[in-house]
């Protein structure tokens, strides 16, 4: 047994270190980890507690209640898949309090760059998707001078 003394001590050290690790692990892992998957389940509640900035799906009705014209125009145009908040920005606060909070819209000077995000020529876009070469397509003019953004086809 004396010949094994040093090995027993190493084994005991291993056991102590392993148990110590497991104890520390118990403290370090958040209590809700693994409840729903390989993540901290309470993170879902944390995210839910964050303020909602977009009016989202509810906006369809919310927007249509006051802005029936543009919503109708857009619904029949090629922009029907583009949500109001895509161009006007997060409008949750506006839907909740339409009088004091007003949503934005692209400024005239930024409009070419803004519309160009989808419509500037790019070989990777699907063939047939409306694209223009911004440097030759009416340079300097704001897009809305010719196109109605809710019903863009001329």
């Amino acid at each position, binding site marked *: 047994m*004396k*010949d*094994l*003394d*040093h*090995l027993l*001590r*190493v084994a005991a*050290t*291993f056991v102590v270190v392993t148990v110590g*690790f497991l104890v520390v*692990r118990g403290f*370090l*892992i958040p209590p809700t*980890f*693994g409840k729903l998957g*390989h993540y901290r389940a309470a993170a879902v509640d944390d995210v839910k507690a964050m303020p909602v900035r977009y009016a989202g799906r509810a906006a369809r009705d919310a927007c249509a209640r006051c802005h029936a014209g543009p919503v109708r125009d857009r619904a029949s145009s090629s922009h029907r898949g583009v949500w109001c908040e895509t161009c006007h920005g997060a409008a949750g606060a506006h839907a909740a309090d339409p009088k004091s909070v007003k949503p934005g819209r692209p400024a005239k000077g930024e409009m070419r760059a803004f519309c160009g995000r989808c419509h500037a020529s790019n*070989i*990777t876009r699907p063939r047939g998707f409306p694209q223009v070469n911004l440097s030759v397509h009416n340079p300097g003019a704001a897009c809305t001078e010719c196109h109605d953004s809710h019903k863009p086809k001329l």
Partner: protein
Amino acid sequence: MDPMIEHLRDALEKVVGFIYPNELELQWSILIVMYPYVTGLVAGAFILASLERVFNVESVKPTYRLSLLSALAFLIVAPLPLQLHLGHPFRGIEIFLTPNTSSAMAMFGFIYAWYLMAVILMEIWLDYRAEIVGWSKTEPWAPKRMFYKVLTFGVTTVTPGSRRIDDVLGRAITVIGLPSAVLLHGYVGFIFGSVKANPWWSTPLMPVIFLFSAMASGIAAVMLLYMFLTWMRNRPLDMRCLDTVAKFLLTAIIVAFTLETLETIQKAYEAEEHFDILALLVEGQLSFSLVFLQIFLGSICPIILLGLPQIFGVSDQGRKSLYAVSGVLALIGIFAMRWNVVIGGQFFSKSLRGFTTYKLQFIGREGLVAAIGVLVLAFAILAVLIRLLPPWTKDEPGRAPAAGGRAS
């Protein structure tokens, strides 16, 4: 202008053909080249050590302890390139706290911990225990004496029975350690080999190729270290040991090179839809690092140089020079191999119709200096380990191969 946009704009100018936007910038930098390189050195050095311990290749005994210490030094720095690359070192512990069994990268932590704690540290401790007990009594410098005392775990007697048990246990650990070393480096190849989307990487041969090149690099590194340290200590080189190590090096390089060639031939013969872009890659951006550095300088030259003494009679001095040059060339070639896999695999687009480029940073977290720093750190750790646990005794030139038993 934003430095990131500036950087991307520079990269954009060097793009050839059609690539997808997310392929513009290479995500895996030189540090990810260092990672398989350093783990390869660990696995190779350990496999060389096991030759003496498990397979009783007596002639390589003078390199046994040096191999173990080199494996430990490189193993300590092995995760460092990953930590530097990821940039959140404090999160590293989380792979141990909440293990994710579906992630190969996350499971690496466990292979690493097992290999470090259960294999390398235990084997070194068992091999040095008798000396550690002696040093804990005779070391004049108090802090060092205290260090040795801690390592004795309070048992300061060494009986013949305990030495016998240590020896048997040491052998058993090496037997377990061999598959662990294979697993450690096989895993690194597996990480690349299992990327289905990349035809340059995706092959089941990848772990095997990585393993044999790892053996070659580890053996070459230990051989060079042995030659250098013996020269530093002004002692004669054990030529029988050196010849045997060189033979193993030659074998490892031949197997690694053959496997790589076989894989290339098979890819060329299959000529799948991605073959054209791979051929362009080899002829273009990788022509220097693959054809010249990896194949010619790093594989063919060492095979010829190490093969010469096997065919012709070469003097001791001549063999030493041949081995030294071959060792350096093999290390360069294997580094080039890692580079060609990691960086080369990111050069071409998934569209198979375009190439991007890689501009190696000099300074910075992922720059050349950081990569060299990782290597220098490994050698600095090795120097400290050699100080603390000398692989040789002061009064004899290395450990005489004919003496048998361990020096104490």
